[in-house]
């Protein structure tokens, strides 16, 4: 019974018109939950959590940096997953989802990079180190930007979707290889690892703001994804209407 209803719900998402009505209904509550999570996360992150005994107050940067980095990777996974579904099942909503996820993922990748740099300056004494994690994150940003650029250059949505899906999937295949090569390169050049985030155990007082912020960021991602998917569906409808007008 319950499996039937979930598959029915998935089918509702498969149809653009049903998607519009369903997403329109859940968007408001989702935005409210996102705001609540982020505000409570901010309260704990800035006011109700202790400074770290080693990193002092800079540990508060972590509450933005780590969720951003997490979303940067989740965004690419969503993008690649949706691309695979779009490529194999020719599913129009999957293409819309992949396209809409890219700018959000790129923005969070950028945020993770800059906050990492702002964290690195007081911790390592320099704005940038060619550490494996930072370098991989930078390359991830390039992958996002290339994907967005490809969508922007090809005008016809159906054609752009298939090309972009190929790029996203090859990228997803390459991300582990690139990451491995960068780690390998890093150990070659500086055997001692620089800095381990947070240490082996995170105190419970830090876990609360971190989890709240991570959840809030994730909800923000999903809410934004829905808004952008709705806009993209409308954009295609506009395109269809304009083409129809040109035909008449």
């Amino acid at each position, binding site marked *: 019974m319950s499996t039937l209803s979930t598959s029915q719900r998935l089918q509702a998402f498969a149809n*653009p018109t049903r998607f519009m009505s369903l997403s329109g209904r859940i968007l408001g509550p989702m935005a409210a939950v996102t705001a609540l999570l982020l505000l409570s996360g901010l309260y704990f992150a*800035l*006011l109700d959590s202790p*400074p770290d005994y080693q990193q*002092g*107050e*800079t540990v*508060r*940067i972590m509450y*933005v*940096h780590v969720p*951003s980095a997490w979303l940067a990777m989740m965004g690419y996974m969503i993008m690649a997953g949706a691309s695979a579904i779009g490529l194999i099942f020719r599913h*129009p909503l999957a293409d819309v989802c992949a396209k809409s996820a890219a*700018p*959000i993922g790129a*923005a*969070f990748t*950028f*945020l993770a990079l*800059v*906050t990492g740099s*702002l*964290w690195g*300056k*007081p911790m390592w004494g320099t704005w940038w180190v060619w550490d494996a994690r930072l370098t991989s994150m930078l390359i991830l940003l390039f992958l996002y930007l290339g994907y967005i650029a490809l969508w922007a250059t090809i005008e016809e*949505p*159906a054609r752009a979707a298939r090309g972009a899906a190929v790029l996203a999937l090859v990228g997803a295949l390459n991300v582990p290889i690139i990451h491995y090569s960068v780690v390998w390169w890093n150990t070659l050049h500086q055997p001692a690892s620089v800095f381990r985030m947070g240490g082996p155990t995170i105190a419970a007082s830090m876990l609360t703001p971190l989890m709240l912020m991570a959840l809030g960021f994730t909800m*923000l991602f999903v809410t*934004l994804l829905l*808004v*952008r998917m*709705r*806009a993209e569906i*409308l*954009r*295609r*409808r*506009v*395109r*269809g*209407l*304009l*083409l*129809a*007008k040109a*035909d*008449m």
Partner: protein
Amino acid sequence: MAEFFFMGGYAAYVWPVYGLALLVVVGLVGQSLLDYRRQLRLVSELESKAGGRARRAARTHRSDA
């Protein structure tokens, strides 16, 4: 209060992080909503102008896309 803004001497790093995060989030939300409103307006303009015939034509266009 002043101590809160001082951030143990790391104010120059902690506050830009939160400021930038706010900027990115507000920018993303604002851009997404503006784009959504724009497309919504365009659709209603085109649909009211063209009437039912164009809507049917648009639907066939969408299905082949």
